């Protein structure tokens, strides 16, 4: 299953791109509207991009009234990413979404590097969300956690149904001439190719620690990259930054993944899940 990374596509502005996905993940919705951070919000580096959008979104009221009906008409499952600043925020947001049949799943953004981290640990935030909804709950974690596998296990025990790994990791870039930080917020979230090995390591660690399904996200640009995330334990793959350069990436990555699987004698991505764990590293002679 190929999804988008939250915040990497506006399905209403580019519906054809969204329909090429197996499910669409919304930009993170917060309790109140947010304009987001001041420009400048994006910067390219040699190994990826930095963003500091700051969870710009219309807030849950307008999302439910104005955006969700249009998203539902796309005809693909809609996953709603939510973010808050406390456990009651997550509980309220889940309650509001619980009764909406248009919502296939809820992704808990517990890891945005561009806003203040929510009060409370992952256990408390996931448990609050769990108490408010029967919808599938995916916990999106940061790769910057000292022990991401332990946090994944805590999310599982608190009632999460799945994991999304990983969010961006904090980075900084400087202006070529002035050496001033490029972004208005100084730092931003690093995504793209640089995040690929980081995501592989986080998915690998969490697949060993948890039995939950995992959406692997981080620097996927090709079918080979998707296969590698699946091989370390991802059950689905999210694509993000590549969409900015290549909005045709969903269909392309899906076709390339099928070719990659065929080349190793497999037909179903599920057969490749966790293959890396079964392989023994070759020792130098």
């Amino acid at each position, binding site marked *: 299953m190929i999804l988008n990374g939250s*915040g*990497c*596509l*506006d399905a209403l*502005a*580019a*519906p*054809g*791109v969204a*329909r*090429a996905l197996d499910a669409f993940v919304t*930009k993170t919705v917060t309790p109140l509207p947010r*304009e*987001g951070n*001041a*420009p*400048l*919000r*994006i*910067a*390219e*580096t040699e*190994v*990826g*991009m930095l*963003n500091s*959008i700051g969870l*710009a979104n219309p807030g849950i009221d307008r999302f439910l009234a104005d955006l969700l009906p249009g998203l539902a008409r796309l005809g693909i499952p809609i996953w709603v990413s939510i973010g808050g600043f406390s456990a009651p925020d997550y509980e309220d947001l889940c309650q509001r979404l619980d009764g909406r049949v248009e919502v296939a799943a809820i992704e808990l953004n517990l890891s945005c590097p561009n806003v203040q981290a929510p009060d409370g640990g992952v256990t408390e935030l996931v448990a609050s969300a769990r108490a408010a909804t029967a919808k599938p709950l995916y916990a999106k974690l940061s790769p910057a956690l000292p022990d991401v596998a332990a946090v994944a296990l805590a999310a599982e025990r608190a009632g999460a149904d799945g994991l999304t790994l990983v969010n961006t990791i904090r980075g900084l870039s400087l202006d*070529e001439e002035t050496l001033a930080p490029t972004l*208005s917020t100084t730092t931003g979230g690093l995504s*793209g*190719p640089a995040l690929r090995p980081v995501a592989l390591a986080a998915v690998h660690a969490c697949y060993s620690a948890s039995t939950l399904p995992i959406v692997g996200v981080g620097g996927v640009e090709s079918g080979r990259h998707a296969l590698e995330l699946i091989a370390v334990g991802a059950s689905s793959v999210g694509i993000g*930054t590549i*969409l*900015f*350069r*290549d*909005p*045709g990436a969903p*269909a392309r990555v899906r076709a390339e993944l099928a070719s990659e699987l065929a080349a190793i004698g497999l037909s179903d991505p599920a057969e490749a899940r966790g293959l890396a764990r079964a392989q023994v590293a070759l020792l130098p002679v």
Partner: protein
Amino acid sequence: MRCPSRSGLRRERLSVTGAGPVGPYRLVRVGRGDLDPGEPGQFFMLTPPGHVLPRPMSLCLAPPGELAFLIDPVGKGTRALAALGEGDEVDVLGPLGRGYRLDVGRPLLVGGGIGIAPLPYLAARLGDAPIVLGFRSERHAKAAALLPGAQIVVDPVLVTEALDPSRDLLACGPEPMLRAVARIAPEAQVAWEAPMACGFGACYGCVVELGGHLRRLCLDGPVLAGHEVLAASDVSERAAAA
């Protein structure tokens, strides 16, 4: 290599048919493929070889079978685009955004520096509209060769000193110039600029303040009304001061 047509966005890998200097800038021509040139003021996303993100470029000229872009090599991405030569390939997505309205009675084209980029295609579509161009030096003014017959002013003379504000102004240039144009002609059409990662509303990187909110320039612009730009400049100045 084309996007599935159902995406509504068209991206193709195009071959460079020629490139050459125009004053301090470089005009890069590519085979058009099946891409539509769109309306003047619309833009395309060009991916510099080896780069993670594409760069927004307005269409400069639309010769038969070709698209031409005027590149100012000021950063890593634009230097890589300016280095493209005949036979190289480049991924191009577009046309994108909202261009100039062409239903104007008494047009006057106003350009400054690299902001002359969309004017040759605009002039071709409008017929024989008068043109005023401003440049910071005689070297930069050589780029006016793209617009034969244009009136040219060079710093310290400003384009706003040379234009008739009662005409329907269609402008593109540096922010201070566009702000000055907007002050004397609030209904002018001005092509604004912002860094963009995608060009089709996905990244939220190109926001400018319009109507009191941060709005995506790729969807609401890049061509805006002059009075909208005055607010946009306010937020840019605040951001710069922060």
